[in-house]
């Protein structure tokens, strides 16, 4: 049952992903990407990552993709014009390269994880039960992952400074 649902959302994600990269209009692409992100959020839920799923919807689909759309609109890229998709040769090249990549990544879907590193099934769910959906992710964030967390904060600061520098009217 879960598997079926998983596959349904999976197919949605892949399908909309495909549409995202093949739509001529950037806005359409962006919207299809949003669909993909939503589908992924659903998959996250199925994978015991409810908090991440929420973040996915809020941050990704909500904030980041809006930013994209905003820029697309700002630059008025949605208007009809020549397509930005490469010609048949580009299509062929992209297909061949991507196909080859997929072929090489194929073993990933089959390889079972080594038993010695796997947690007993249900451990994650149990942990979430124990600490709460948010707490299960947040606790390590301020504990084990304190340093990366701080780096991430500096990263965001840098991005802000950078964006300001690049975008401000006068240098």
């Amino acid at each position, binding site marked *: 049952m879960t598997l079926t649902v998983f596959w349904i959302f999976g197919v949605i994600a892949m399908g909309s992903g495909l549409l995202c990269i093949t739509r001529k209009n950037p806005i359409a692409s962006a919207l299809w990407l949003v669909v993909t992100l939503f589908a992924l959020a659903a998959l996250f839920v199925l994978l015991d990552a409810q908090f991440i799923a929420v973040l996915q919807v809020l941050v990704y689909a909500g904030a980041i993709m809006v930013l994209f759309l905003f820029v697309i609109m700002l630059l008025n890229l949605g208007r009809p014009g020549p397509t930005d998709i490469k010609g048949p040769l580009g299509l062929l090249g992209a297909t061949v390269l991507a196909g080859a990549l997929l072929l090489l990544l194929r073993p*990933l879907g089959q390889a079972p994880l080594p038993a010695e*590193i796997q947690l007993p099934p249900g451990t994650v769910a149990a942990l979430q039960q124990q600490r709460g959906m948010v707490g299960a992710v947040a606790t390590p964030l301020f504990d084990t992952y304190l340093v990366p967390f701080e*780096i991430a904060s500096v990263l965001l600061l840098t991005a802000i400074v950078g964006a300001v520098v690049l975008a401000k009217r006068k*240098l």
Partner: protein
Amino acid sequence: MNLNPAIPRDLLLSLLPELVLTGWALVLLLFVAWRHRTVWDLRIAGWLTLLALVSTAVAIWWLWWNRAGVRGVVSMIAADDFRWVADWVFVGAAALTVLISFTYLERERLLAPEYHVLLLLGTLGMMLMAAGADLIVIFLALELMSVAVYVLAGFDRRRARSAEAALKYFLLGAFASGFLLYGIALVYGATGTTNLVLIGARLSIAMRASAMLLAGLALLIVGFGFKIAAVPFHMWAPDVYDGAPTPVTAFMATGVKAAAFAALFRVMYQAFAAVPAWHDIMWWLAVITMIGGNLFALGQRSLKRMLAYSSVAHAGYLLVAVTAGGVAGTSAFLVYIVAYTLMSLGAFAVLIAKGRAGESDVTIDDLSGLAARRPWLAFALAVCMLSLLGFPGTAGFIGKWYILIAATSAGQNTLAAILVLTSVVSAGYYLPVIMAMYMKPEPIEAAHVDVCLDRWGRAAVAAVVVGLLLFGVWPNRLFDLARAAGDSVHAGGTTTAAP
């Protein structure tokens, strides 16, 4: 001084240089928010930056002096000699970049002190990359560095070339980050952890290398390969180096590359020492990078693009050090990166002196007759070129020699031979620079009258030349440092018999 990161005090201590630098960056940010209009604001920001870098260096030195180290504990942050030496390289590269930026920024009217903030933040990212003992730290640090450098590349917004360079760098960088991240994910999947030491431990206890691990490893190499501009992931480099403001180019060619290599070394030798598969890949990457970089550089007229390809070629030499591995390889990398940082920065500094406001390209022929008009500048560039070429008496030679020893000790004689053969090709583009400066007449009367550096730039160039010659003749202290650093990375691993 043994630090246990589980204790907050020790954690802070182990991050002392980064904290100092972050602190200064915030101070500077405040200053910038307050003063960001005049030339003097820019200069003061520059001096503050230098101060920040010096104090960071002192912090590093303090930790090094006290033999600070995280030993026997699983941690996000490594504290070992390798990190300190690498940090010094980054700080040094940043400091030299600041020194050569004064002239450039003022001449190009880039009166935005945020430049220095970004420089500091980028340096912070580099230091964290070298410090990262966990893939997630390395990834975040890499992104921190990259974001700062993306912006710096596009810093000269008035010029389309700068913007284009930023865009190319950014798009390809983000693309490559995707691969790196996927690689991290797969390695995580295969080993259940992202900590380098733990990965190493798990892989060494006879865990069969799964397809997932190998794919992850490959994608990690791709991700790093992009940052170090290894062929065939190098194609962004010439364009971006070309379009970015010259001091930023210098910073990219030295600091960014050094940081990526430092991380690569730590990842490969602390986590994947037990997996032989990557040696083969590195071997091939090294070979095609050396061949490609050197060949492509031959076709360039623009000095900046030539240096860009040359930096690709040098990435190839460094990859030889990676392939050779062992203590020798790691030490060789450190020695070489010191030399490379000096000589590249020196070359870019002279390039800045020669460039004119708004002028895009300096071709090799533009340097004709420079020696007659500006003998010291020409001498400096000549020393840099010879060092890049690997000529005895310069640090570049010592570095190359060390890499060759490392490669030979590892039985990689063919690789060593390819290295020197491609070096011969490199004479084909380094020598014309010297040739132009010394052996050709000035194209027009007084062609080089306005070539000059301010006193900071001159100080930087002088420091570079002195460093190159000093290390070229008396590299003993540098060796000891590098050797200890190499040892520290391989503490748990195998040490080869050779030096």
